[in-house]
């Protein structure tokens, strides 16, 4: 898990503005604190994907065109949940009351941290998989409903395994957490993995496959 400087700035809405040394120090400080307070944890389970897009052995059906397009041709999927834990969340509550600037940097650094952690998980999965994996696809992407988040949390028992809950609005708490599906394709595994930080073509696709064209964070 790491916090990539460019990614951090991009999440903060950076478009090439000039920053001075003291600002950069603050970025580093927030990034370091996010890493220090994180206790990353995850669960991953492999499922057979049935023809009607449900996970075999469960009663969970994947709703929506977009997830089905994303997983087209996959016979199996990984269902994953990951979190960087409660300590960053607590620090965020505290910073919110003491300093909005620090809260903003820390909040963003934590978002980078959990994404990077998910990249690490996927990289590991890819290493142990002879065929290519798809990008992560999460609830709320395209027309894959947020509501599915609850089902995912229950199947993976994230409350007792990770301390990760899904609330009545289908949002994850602690907030700096991710649930996702990763498809196992029949294509040969790529030579380079996705965690190479924007250097290979498949990483750029992360944004390209998203339909939110007006997104401020689009690469």
């Amino acid at each position, binding site marked *: 898990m790491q916090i990539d400087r460019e990614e951090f700035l991009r999440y*903060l*809405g*950076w*478009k090439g*503005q000039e*920053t*001075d*040394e*003291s*600002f950069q120090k603050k970025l580093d400080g927030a990034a370091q604190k996010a890493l220090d307070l994180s*206790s990353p*944890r995850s669960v*991953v*389970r*492999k499922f057979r994907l049935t023809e009607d897009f449900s996970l075999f*052995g*469960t*009663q*969970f059906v994947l709703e929506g065109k977009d997830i089905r397009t994303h997983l087209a041709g996959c016979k199996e999927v990984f269902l994953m949940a990951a979190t960087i*834990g*409660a*300590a960053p*969340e*607590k620090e965020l*509550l*505290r910073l*919110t*009351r*003491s*300093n*909005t*600037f620090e*809260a*903003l*940097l820390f*909040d963003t650094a934590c978002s980078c941290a959990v994404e990077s952690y998910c990249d690490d998980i996927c990289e590991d999965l890819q290493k142990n998989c002879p065929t290519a994996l798809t990008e992560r696809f999460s609830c*709320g992407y395209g027309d894959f409903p*947020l*509501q599915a988040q609850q*089902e995912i*949390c*229950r*199947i993976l028992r994230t*409350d*007792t395994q*990770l*301390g990760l*809950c*899904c*609330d*009545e*609005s*289908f*949002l994850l*708490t*602690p*907030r700096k957490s991710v649930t996702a599906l990763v498809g196992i394709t029949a294509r040969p595994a790529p030579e380079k993995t996705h965690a190479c930080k924007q250097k290979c073509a498949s990483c750029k696709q992360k944004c390209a496959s998203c339909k939110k064209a007006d997104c401020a964070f689009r690469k």
Partner: protein
Amino acid sequence: MDFKTFLQNNIVVFDGAFGTLLQQKIQSVPTIPERLNLENPAAIEEIHREYAEAGADVITANTFGANEGKVGDRAESEKLVRAAVRLAKKAAPTKFVALDIGPTGRLLEPMGTMSFAEAYDIFAHMVEAGSDADLILIETMSDLQELRAALLAAKEHSNLPVVCSMTFEENGRTFTGCDPVCYALTASPLADAVGVNCSLGPDKLLPVVEIILAHTAKPVIVQANAGMPDAEMRYSIDSDRFAETYEKFLKMGVRIVGGCCGTTPAYIKKIRALADSHTVVPTHFRPLAAVCSANRAVFLDDVHIIGERINPTGKKAMKQALLSEDYAYVQKQAIEQQEAGASILDVNAGLPELDEKTVLPRLIREVQAVSDLPIQIDSSSPAAIEAALRACCGKAIVNSVNGEDKSLHAILPLVKKYGAAVVGLTVDEHGVPKSAKERIKIAEKIIRTAETYGIAQEDIFIDCLTLTVSAEQAQAAETLSAIREIKARFHVKAVLGVSNISFGLPNRQIINSAFLTAALFAGLDLPILNPNIPENIQTVFAFRALSGQDKNCAAYTERFAAAAPSAPSPSAPNPNAKPEEDIFFAIRKGLPDADKICAALLERFAPLEVIDRFLIPALNEVGNDYEKGILFLPQLIAAAESAKGCFAKIKKKLPAGNAERGKIVLATVKGDVHDIGKNIAKTVLENYGYTVIDLGKNVPPETIAMTCRKENIRLCGLSALMTTTVPAMEETIRLLRTECPDCRVMVGGAVLSEEYAKKIGADWYCKDANADVKIAQFVFEQGEPVPTLQTK
């Protein structure tokens, strides 16, 4: 024989994993496995029978996730629970049957959206539905507050014995950061047995179990996993290795043993054999004076400061904050006191205008959201104290009882029930005694009465009272001698509010420091004071060094070695330049010392002039550059933060309300806990001189509408992050339209667009924090018109 009696004389064996066996028996397990209680009762009974045959004394009914929170429906939950208990009793008629209660699956406030009351309600219902069981097992908890809700529900809705266990990680804490000491201190008074389950393999739980054993007088339970599973759900520890560690547990004094994930009847058979070949071993527990929150225990074998700032008495700003429900102010006070060196926070809501029994618990929740210090509940009303004790996570101090029978018999039962510590004031119906001897007599009465309620001396803190030295000079010596005597005669701690001593005298801090030093040497353990006054902290640190509590003066050295003023940062403005120019640079760069430049300006210009000529133009410049993309968001916020320091300086020079440009309510709507966007808007608006009433996150529509109506609000800002919470925003706007037709509404949040905002009936959509300012200027100060969405 009932379970409690059985537990007194025996090592008790619980059963093992349920889910693990279920997966072996059934191909497709429903998301709520408890549905099988109705759909496939034979399979459930079979598992119970296997564990009974393996030798378990207690069979756990299949109700772990059958609560309303997970099942989604109350009646359904009840059906599943009743069926489960029935099945367990039928399958194992000679065994004890435990109602199994797991977490609700939702996170409690402040990290999540579920309130303590909601959680309590869910558990209470489950407890009632499971009333046919022989005992209640609350397990796999990771949030101490959720566990408290379950324990209180169990205690208040049944007479069954209650066993509880939490799940710990390799770092020795639960997922939410609760440590075993805090857990043992908080849960023991509410349970008949405490311990651990799930988590890791048994060997990794040894250190956690050791800590729990040392901090509870109650029997301890261990139900470990059979190690960690691999991707194919195979567990790493076999039954022989499992039993090896369990033998160690029994030798340490563990009294209840069983298995969790990955264990099978084979494992239970082995620990049955162990239990039969071992006798009950006493533990090393001895009572200690300690208080705690969920994450931090404070052992009172050393001097600790109780911060006194969260108390409206004689504090204008705090009083105003409490009356206007400005909990952000209170939270700031909590953070400041903790940073200054307080170990415990006193919390008081005693204002005649306030309903103490609603405000005090709210205050405690808000303080605990931002600080992990233990709480001292400061009230004399039993109703308010009980409400506060329910809300407070951890082992609190109740401040206070006095020597009057009425006070003792109303408050001590509460102290006992919730397992708190208590401050005993040495006054009674005859007032403050003038001699040390009389005060000791009252202290003794308090201690003896507390003992009849089962409250140990370690949990009693005696306050020998500080009187004003300018009025009653001889009393200072009486107080000190009372402290010395009480510490010599009893195992109690001494607590004392110090600053009253100097009332009416000039340069009060001189007297305060001297008296504090004397009291500490007399044996004072817990001074109640303002930690933001450096001399107070200095005195305490010096005492700890002189008395030897601070070994090798390490804490003193660490704190004061680097106390020299730091060199100015290289990006600081040129000291020769004029403050009129520097202020623009300092705010633009977000420098923390902008307030010093502001102070220089205040020497030359009137406060309002400083705002209008310097601060607002400087902020406007930053705002414009942000809009043009010359600066980006963190730079805008850094500028706002440094301007905030300037406004704080200016406000001190202005009569109250003079700089007020308009009052705005901000809230993140019901169901949403993402509030960074709202907080950014707040920071920026405050820096333009607007008063922001920040209602926080997850705020119900009714609260927002009520506040807007009560405060006569003309502009309200709502924030929501996700599609699933926008309906709550729409509902809030609808309610605002009927309740406060004159209030305009601006909305913002990741998922919103101008179109969407229009659809849900908002007046304005704010694409960023700067947009809020333009709208506020238009609404309050005839600024440039901003067309509303509904007219567009």
